[in-house]
């Protein structure tokens, strides 16, 4: 039985190797003492030490973290609302357009989204004088729009699995809808909200294309800073920055994973495999009898 899927298992390992080997090489070479990127000159951390003194880079890091923080909070609020509307309110005018607007940012090429948002901001500045200058604020709006879609997908997956009878019971007992939502629904979907928050945070931290379009002079983010350095070629300093970013994201991802896993364990007390098997058996039996 186990042998049956040998080909796919081999492919899984080949795929994972393909995904991870470049990143491992990158991290190893960030500790290279040699100035030449391809020649190994022994272990050293001096590329990392230099990063802290680079004020331009550190400012970009601060700005990126600030934007990511604001983005994650706004995207969670908007995305959770959107997910709630998608899964709980089946009929309202413009529902098709709404669900289209929620999923479209996931697939829309970033250059189109970036260009269109910039042109919007320019047109708005002409018409109503706001935003007067592009920077943290406009990047935040762009990132929030983009991350809302991700949060909505993550949260709506969880909302769809929830047992709605608990919400209905709360309302039957007289809780107003907003109270039911805050006291019953939100705690039950809390892990996916947290996962959505972390996802938005890392996506915002990572974005280059949108930020390049909608930022103004003097508001460079970390990816923009890295990109302009990378364009000039491979350098040990960039290896060091890249490794730090990889490490930070890996930590965030592990955290998000633990959140999802603990929620998964709680919600699936009866193992789903057995569950499915029983229903399948029941279906076969009922057909036999009829």
């Amino acid at each position: 039985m186990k042998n049956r899927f040998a080909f796919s298992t081999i492919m899984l390992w080949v795929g994972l190797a393909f995904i991870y080997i470049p990143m491992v090489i990158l991290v190893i070479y960030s500790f290279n003492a040699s100035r030449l990127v391809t020649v190994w000159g022994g272990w050293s951390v001096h590329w990392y030490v230099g990063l802290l003194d680079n004020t331009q880079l550190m400012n970009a890091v601060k700005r990126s973290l600030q934007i990511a923080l604001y983005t994650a909070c706004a995207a969670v609020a908007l995305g959770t609302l959107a997910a709630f509307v998608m899964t709980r309110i089946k009929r309202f005018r413009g529902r098709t357009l709404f669900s289209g607007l929620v999923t479209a940012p996931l697939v829309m090429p970033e250059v189109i989204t970036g260009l269109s948002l910039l042109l919007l901001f320019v047109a708005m500045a002409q018409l109503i004088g706001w935003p007067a200058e592009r920077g943290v604020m406009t990047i935040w709006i762009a990132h929030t729009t983009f991350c809302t879609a991700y949060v909505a997908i993550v949260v709506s997956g969880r909302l769809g699995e929830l047992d709605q009878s608990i919400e209905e019971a709360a309302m039957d007992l007289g809780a107003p809808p907003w109270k039911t939502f805050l006291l019953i629904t939100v705690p039950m979907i809390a892990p996916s909200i947290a996962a959505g928050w972390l996802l938005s945070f890392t996506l915002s931290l990572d974005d280059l294309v949108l930020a390049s379009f909608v930022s103004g002079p003097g508001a460079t983010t970390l990816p923009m800073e890295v990109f302009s350095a990378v364009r000039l070629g491979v350098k040990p300093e960039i290896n060091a920055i890249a490794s730090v970013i990889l490490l930070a994201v890996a930590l965030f991802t592990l955290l998000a994973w633990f959140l999802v896993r603990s929620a998964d364990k709680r919600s699936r007390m009866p193992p789903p495999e057995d569950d499915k098997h029983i229903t399948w058996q029941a279906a076969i039996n009922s057909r036999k009898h009829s």
Partner: protein
Amino acid sequence: MNKLISRILPSGRFWVISVPYLWLFLFFLLPFAIVLKISFSEAAIAIPPYKPLFDYVEQSLNVVVNLGNYIFLTQDSLYLAAYLGSLKVALISTVICLLLGYPMALAIARAPREKQLVYLLLVMMPTWTAILIRVYAWMGILSSNGLLNNLLMSIGVISSPLQILNTNIAVYIGVVYAYLPFMVLPLYANLVKHDETLLEAAMDLGASKLSAFWKITVPLSKTGIIAGSMLVFIPVVGEFVIPELLGGPETLMIGKILWQEFFNNRDWPVASALAIVMLAILLIPIILFHYNQSRAMEKNA
């Protein structure tokens, strides 16, 4: 369910819907209308660098619809080549991702439940990491004095360095590398729901492993295949970072051209026209993806 809806006060319900709706309308849909508008205006040396579409002079409204930008796109073969180049890269990469990702997703879906989560995390983690950095990692590997060439030369496969970086091959490697997880995840989500007893039944009835796979697993995973393929195909058409860093002079992709037109030439109307045409090309796959998604969601509900 109905109770929940009826209990929500009209005003509360209105706000719950309208806040995300308004945000997405204002910052996602409206901007496309503006791009469309600017694609019809004439470039000018001004801030912003285009002429207004509407002109109100002496009680007469003049609407100047300039088709010049679109005509310009057809006259220079560069743009057509870039569109075709993008479609070709996206199509080939999608097929490679499917061929590589399908068995991966199958292996994860058939693994024990505890391991599934670990594998999923391993596949998912890179999508949360800067695409820029992962593409950068390949620059060091593929360059002519890079690790791959050094490795191949030291084991004697080649005698002189191969030119891989700054060619289309590097772009394919980068695109497949960056977008593979987007193929694996929807396929996994679909495959994990399959009932294995169907396969057992097929085998009991005498089907070979391969024909059971073709006749049961593949048709059942259709929505996953569509979702995964669209998640790879659509963004790759507009990809900018990968062709910019890994591609060379022969690499013509529309995302890169749009970027250059906008930032280097500062021709906003032509950049807008490029975006509109790109959007028109992608409209069918985007609608297909959306239709597929909402059908899958309805099935779950």
